């Protein structure tokens, strides 16, 4: 545990003491359909860990699945971008976990204009995020997990910005109760064209959840995540999922975004699972530009 404290402390040193605007904000946004159904509350989600490299790798060893893969498409409303994502997690004897993830956002093309307003061309910006995660369940009730990734934005001809980011979590499970704590998205900074330095949206994150099966066919999951950003912002997401006979799921959730990079929204989602094949969908409801975002994903697990 001391080691964990040291690691968290070391990563926090990478973060500027005062950081208002946050670079590469998409690293703080969930885009897969299963997570968006519960408003992004997924730190202790063990039912679907394909995208654990983007959330909490420490959850993998507590999963009942050996392998979980998923690929999805998200119509991301704030800038009308089309996001493709894919992830996979491997659970080795519920002792160790390995995860990889890839996300690519295609933002709409814009007219390149000069200082007089004359159009001189067009350019299609894009975002990319790749992650790998490792987990170790070193006690029956306790595991550690870490993700390391690289996020980049291509904004104009000859102008790309990127940063390394890491997540570190510890997770404990006591029966149906799961709790986790760690740091998310700590990493290197980004400089703009004028040389100003910006950090990525790192936070101290905690999560908790409770799962219960009633009558062998009715399962309920309740999930809560909270982020305290190093910039002083606070965000909380809470969601619940009902699963019938491990075949059909419905999800609801709400995120309070506050000043954080991702604004507040409510979410609904649904999923089916048959012979290990999963199909999930989520829809976001909000008065902010994030409203009407729709996510779909297809996965396979065993």
């Amino acid at each position, binding site marked *: 545990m001391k080691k964990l404290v040291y690691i968290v402390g070391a990563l926090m040193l990478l973060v500027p003491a005062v950081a*208002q*605007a*946050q*670079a*590469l*904000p*998409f690293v*703080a*946004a969930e885009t897969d359909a299963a997570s968006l159904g519960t408003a992004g509350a997924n730190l202790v989600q063990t039912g679907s860990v394909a995208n654990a490299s983007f959330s909490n790798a420490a959850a993998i060893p507590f999963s009942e699945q050996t392998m979980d893969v998923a690929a999805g498409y998200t119509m991301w*409303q*704030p*800038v*009308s*971008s089309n996001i493709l994502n894919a992830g996979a997690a491997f659970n080795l004897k519920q002792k160790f976990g390995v995860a990889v993830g890839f996300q690519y*956002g295609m*933002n*709409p*093309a*814009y*007219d*390149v*204009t*000069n*200082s*007089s*307003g*004359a*159009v001189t061309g067009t*350019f299609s*910006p894009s*975002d990319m995020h790749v992650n790998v995660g490792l987990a170790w369940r070193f006690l029956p009730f306790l595991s550690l997990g870490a993700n390391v990734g690289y996020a980049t*934005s291509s*904004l*104009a001809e000859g*102008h790309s*910005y990127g940063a390394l980011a890491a997540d570190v979590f510890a997770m404990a499970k006591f029966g149906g109760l799961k709790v986790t704590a760690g740091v998310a998205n700590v990493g290197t900074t*980004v400089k*703009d*064209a*004028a040389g*100003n330095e*910006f950090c990525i949206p790192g936070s101290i994150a905690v999560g908790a959840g409770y799962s219960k099966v009633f009558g062998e066919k009715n399962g309920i999951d309740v999930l809560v995540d909270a982020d305290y950003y190093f910039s002083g912002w606070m965000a909380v997401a809470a969601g619940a999922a009902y699963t019938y006979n491990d075949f059909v799921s419905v999800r609801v959730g709400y995120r309070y*975004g506050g*000043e*954080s*990079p*991702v*604004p507040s929204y409510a979410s609904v989602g649904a999923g089916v699972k048959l012979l290990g094949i999963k199909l999930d969908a989520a829809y976001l409801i*909000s008065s*902010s*530009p*994030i409203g009407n975002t729709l996510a779909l994903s297809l996965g396979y697990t065993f």
Partner: protein
Amino acid sequence: MKRLFAAILMATFLVSCADKELNAPDVDYPQTEISSADNAVVKGKCIVLFSEDVTSAIEESPAGDISTKSAGIDQMFREMGVTHLERLFPHAGKFEPRTRKEGMHRWYVIEYSEEVAFTKASSGLGGLPGVELVEPVRKVRLNDYAFNDTYYDQMWGLDNVVKPAYDINVVPVWENYTTGNPDVIVSVVDNGVDIKHEDLADNCLTTGHYNSVDKSSTIFPGDHGTHVAGTIAAVGNNGKGVVGIAGGDASKGQKGVKIMSCQIFKDGVSGSTDNEVSSRAIKWGADHGAVISQNSWGYVYDANNDGSVTGDELKDALDAAVTPYDAKAIDYFIKYAGCDNDGNQLPDSPMKGGVVIFAAGNDNIANGAPANYEPVIAVGSLASDGTKSTFSNYGPWVDIAAPGTNIMSTVNGGGYNTMNGTSMACPHVSGVAALVVSYHGGPGFTNEMLKEKILNSANSTDFPTSYQVGPMLDAYGAITYGTDAAPAPVTDLEVSTRANTLDLRWTVTADEDGKPAYGFLVLYSKDKTKVEEATSTNYKSVSYAACIPQQPAGEKVDFSVKGLDFTAEYYVKVLAYSYGRNYSAATEVMTVQTTTNNAPVIEPLSEGPYAIKASEVLEVPFAISDPDGHALEVNVSCEAAHVFSQSMETGAYVFTVVGKEVEPGDYEAEFTAKDEYGEETAYTMPFSVLDNAAPVILKEIEDILISAKGKEMSIDMTEYVTDPDGEQLKYDITVSNNKVVHVTPRADRLYVTALAYGLVDVEIAASDVRGEKAVFNFKVLVKDPSDPVSVYPNPVTDYVNVGTLEMAETVIAITSSTGKLVYEGTYQVSGIEPARIDMTGFVPGTYSISVSFGGNEYKRTVVKL
């Protein structure tokens, strides 16, 4: 009756007008001046331009009839023995109308007796009514008579195409008289001649050469002797090498004069030799048929052999005289060349007695021996531009000058090269002497006659006497000397004075054939007796000047003699002479009084006061002259920048000040004119350059909206700016992005062309000639009316502009890529006045910008770098 007379006059006038319209306009054709001795003219034939009336009469006559129905012309035809008359331009068939329109039917060829000189025919016919022009029929040849020898075009001494006055005028001798005669022998006393040279062999004696060093007949050739011999007698027109002055014309089978090589230097080497060798060689020539002795050598005074004659060497050189034995040999040659032992001309000799010709020497000193020996012809040297060769010795003892700088001729071994020296000038005289003997030689022709022809015909007109190298050799003058008729004396000499200048005026006289006098010799002095006693052959005791008029006979010629003493009494008379230097009798001696010197005159040709604006140019013409005709030195002094120049055409001086180049203020220009005798006149001209007023803005230029690419609009700048000085303003234009808008000034109007959509700042600086400006700043928006929102620049690094089509209250919101609202504001926005949002604190990334006005929302993507 008056009415009838007026009607006749009117009818005559109308007829005249009609005639003018139908026919070629009258043209004043220049009359060709021809002498009776002109061999370039076909004898017994001339061309006449008749009037329309005479032409009609001829055309109406029966074929073969030469009647013109003009009594005068018919009488002259009879006197001329006219045998044939025909149109120069025959009837042209279908082109006859235009032939007649051009008046070409009036030109006739007339054949008449060859006994009648053209000059007589011309003067007889030329004065008759109905004859507009009488022209000789010139002999025509292809323009290739110039010798075909390889280096002919480099032989400026014979044919100076750049400055024709400075050659020896030999081409007309070749064309009309002779190119040489093998009976004339020239002994070349020099180093040996390359007598086997390809361009000399035919004109060298087969036997009779003399090696005076070895006292043998074996010649050791050298460059110098071969060069000299080539100038005299290199074979002409043989398609190779050079042309000798008397080298014959190989293309016509005419042989040139013969070269006798009399070698006085050992083995062809120049350097020095023993003096007795040269005297022996001179005498050899006289005893073996030569009548001309060519000597391009002199005594050596460069004792230390350093290449220059200085100190005691110079003193010796200046005192030098011919040695007694050389003098004896020279006297012998002159007396006995071409003669028997008793001094009688040999039957086969072309001349009684000989002529000895010497180079003046190359030390540029006032002496040269043996050339200074009086009986010889001493030859100085000139360059191709008519100036004295820098090396030539000089002095009154030099008899004649000839080309001596950069002379092309033969050299030993069959080659050709250029050389410099009086050594090269001397053979030019020998060559001309050989030509004269070739043409005039024979029984009774003497060496004195030859000498007179060469020396008295020399050209003193184009060469200053200050050179002291004698007048310029003139081959044509020498050949024709004394052979043509003397012109009639001047009978109407008028003399007046301007200060120390004599102004003379007389009528150009002619000889009995009507040939105008070639020149006039003006003799003058303050000693009346000397002027009275001066003759055409003895006038060196008085001052003289030669006038070569351009006017034909019968016309007045004006001539001035300058540089006389002021307020002195002078006596003057004039003699006319032919090209062959046959002189007329002199006019009576006239007495004139020179006067005091008059000051130059400076007179502005425009009236003051002189004041200009900065945009103006002050030009004041001046007439600056000297009443006495003296040369003037004219200067101007002025603090202001100016130009003072003289017109090549009018001779007027012009003082010019450009207003913009001079600071405003009052100035003075001081003009001075000083004649060559120091008499000076000054003139002060005040002038002003006025203060400048800067351009004034009348009103500002408003921002401009252009709604389509390619559209053009103009701005009349006279509505916005004016210059109190009335100057044409210059417009300098700066556009913040010239890919959006192009602005071009044309006079006072600016043309604005939209090239692309966008908003630019335009600055117009209207400046006057002094650079004072009125500056305008405005914006030009080129906006696509179908796109209501503009967001630029994109990507943005600091500020982003958000513009709308028309002014409206606009809400602008910016959200991040994750949907976070990062900016929101409300503005009064238009295309020309866009909202300007600071994005310097924004992280790099993709943003969505929402622009809401008029109930509509428009979204655009903007990227911050």
